[in-house]
């Protein structure tokens, strides 16, 4: 089968969901941006993404293909899986950035290490002490942890703003330098949110 030709009628139907001639559902493309018909940008308007998701769900969902040919049912299943995967990844700024980083050859998996960002070393040390105290039943550590939680949330907020700025930079320039900065920031942000999560768990 020619890659770009419709499997049913043989007409060219390059990169569209349905054949323009016989309307048969085509095998889906795997790239999230291409699949959704969106330019590859890091800044995404989530409301727009959501309406694209709903619109395409109505077109592609297996519930709609129940009485069609087995082949179209299979394509509908695969296409909807990609649609759902794409929506889940692209609506979340962090996952979206990781997706683009991975496409650009950055290794994301190995960046999940637990190296403490140097500027947080002291803070983390104190925090662990306070956490130990609370786990040991010492409630006096509570206010300190509450403060730490607030501080982490603020730091997370700052990181998000910074991320937003870097996203705009990348969309304007498309350079690897910006992507490298984004990767570094994502690591820091991940570390902070893990800390915040840990504190929150103890405070509950």
């Amino acid at each position: 089968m020619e890659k770009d030709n419709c499997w049913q009628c043989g007409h060219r139907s390059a990169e569209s969901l349905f054949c323009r001639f016989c309307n048969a559902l085509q095998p889906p493309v795997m790239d999230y941006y291409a699949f959704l018909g969106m330019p590859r940008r890091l800044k995404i308007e989530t409301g727009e993404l959501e309406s694209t998701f709903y619109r395409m769900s109505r077109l592609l969902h297996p519930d709609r293909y129940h009485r069609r040919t087995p082949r179209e049912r299979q394509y509908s299943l695969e296409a909807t899986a990609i649609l759902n995967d794409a929506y889940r990844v692209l609506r979340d700024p962090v996952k979206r950035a990781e997706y683009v980083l991975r496409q650009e050859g950055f290794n994301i998996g190995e960046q999940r290490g637990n190296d403490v960002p140097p500027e947080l070393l002291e803070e983390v040390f104190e925090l662990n002490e306070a956490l130990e105290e609370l786990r040991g039943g010492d409630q006096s550590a509570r206010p300190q942890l509450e403060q730490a939680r607030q501080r982490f949330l603020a730091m997370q907020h700052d990181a998000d703003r910074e991320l937003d700025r870097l996203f705009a930079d990348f969309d304007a320039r498309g350079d690897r330098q910006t992507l490298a900065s984004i990767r570094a920031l994502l690591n820091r942000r991940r570390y902070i949110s893990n800390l915040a999560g840990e504190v929150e768990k103890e405070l509950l």
Partner: protein
Amino acid sequence: MSQIFQIDFGTQKKARVVGIDLGTTNSLAAYMDAASPRIIPDPAGRRIVPSVVSVAEDGEIIAGEPARELLLSRPERTVYSVKRLMGRGAADVQDELRRFPFHIAPGSETVLRLQLGDRQFTPPEISAAILRQLKKNAEAFLGEPVSQAVITVPAYFNDAQRQATKDAGRIAGLEVLRLVNEPTAAALAYGLDKRKQGVVAVYDLGGGTFDISILKLQDGIFEVLATNGDTHLGGDDIDNLLLDIALEDIQSEWKTSLARGGAAVQMLRRAVIEAKEKLSFVPSVNLEFEFEGRKYQRELTRELLERLIRPIVDRTLGPCRACLRDAGLTPDQIDEVVLVGGSTRIPLVRSAVETLFRARPHTELNPDEVVALGAAVQAAILSGDAEDKLLLDVTPLSLGIETMGGVVSKLIHRNSTIPASATEVFTTAVDGQRNVLIHVVQGERELARDCRSLARFDLKDIAPMPAGMARIEVRFLIDANGILNVTARDLRTGKEQSVDVKPSYGLTDEQVEAMIRESIESAEEDFAARQVREARLEADTILAAVDKAKGNPAWDFQFFVPEYQPGRLYRFVMRAAYLPYESHQQVEAAMRVHRAALADR
């Protein structure tokens, strides 16, 4: 006669898909009638089929209400709450089995087998007997063969439990077009989409399972944001608490203990359930029980019940909070709350839900029926009769593979919208290695042994080559039923790689096929006599209905203009076609009487 049989069969459209709620305690079927879903009653007019199956000495299988009666006379051959055993291994259900009067057969590690008399049955086969009863009721009521169904499952059911439910459908001769999560079905039934948009929480406390789902509604799309639950928490647990109290009382009063699993305990269980149900409406009831001339009675108050079940109600609140957190919402962002399942009639449950979500729950629809009604709506969606609606559900549990040191690498996270997929590339560790074994698990824990083993996938016939050279891409895809499909491709050749599936709990395809064959064969042998007996009963019902309808002017209208609104007569004629000869004659006789009556006028 000719006039009657000139009905235009062309008006009969595509085969009807029924919706089925295969519950722990009760099961129901529903269909879509014009615009709204309706419950399908049995020939006697009962809307509920108790999920009870009994096997007679001669191997005859009885399901539903008659089986429920047999719980008292032959408890060791009668199965109830089989849903709790679906997709489970013997080790999972030790506690449970202690309470059941029936026994499991030896060698039930991967697939439970219940020993009923001299025969063994797997939980899917028992469920199939219930489904067969529902199918038969539906065929009698609708007057047409029914071969396709949407069946509901608890949202928190894992892969094996879902697969077992699908197997049950196949064994019963039903093509299961879709498994729908029960809370989602309930939201569909409520037609809450009419409000255009909003966030709905569905709290579903049934006989054996608890589910909480939070949905976002927008222009007919029902998007599940998060789900949580406990597949081992429900009304059964409340019954057991009350039963334990009564058993203790009796032991101290009578100085003998009732044999576990015996008929007496089943009678006591029934009395306790009745008392529990009454306590939802009155502050106190008298529990009475008589056995072999001895009498036991005590007062049960709602206050005592509430004290007893407080821990159970509290156990439902944890999943509710987790679900809110996963959906990224706070309680005040929930616009509506829907209650599902018989246990939500309990005032304490209602008030706990109301307090948590700060919203007055919906209770307009019967909580026992709402799930089946929703299944019928989903059936209509699949048939193309409700295209304005679309359900987007999620997978309740994370899916992962076991890696080095027994650690789980998560591939698809819980609460991902389904269908969902993930791709991983595998290679060989030893020169010339021909197989790669992938252990897939479900659950949230870090270690594979703390998760639920789902299956082992064996990538077979890998071309021999040095270690690390093979590149096999495996695609894990969870379909719209929440069931995992695995395909593999050799990246070097681009060819499909064969995969052998060894489910950890549950039946292989071959086993299911064998059960289907067996059920068809035994159906022919064992049940021929029973069918005739039932046909007679059914004919009696029809005769009575024909008699009663004679005086009704609407009946005459339908009679003369069958193709316009075939209605009941059409169904009777169709039904007659499925019945054995003698009842066919009875129906014809009834028609003759009826026509004579018309001619007289």
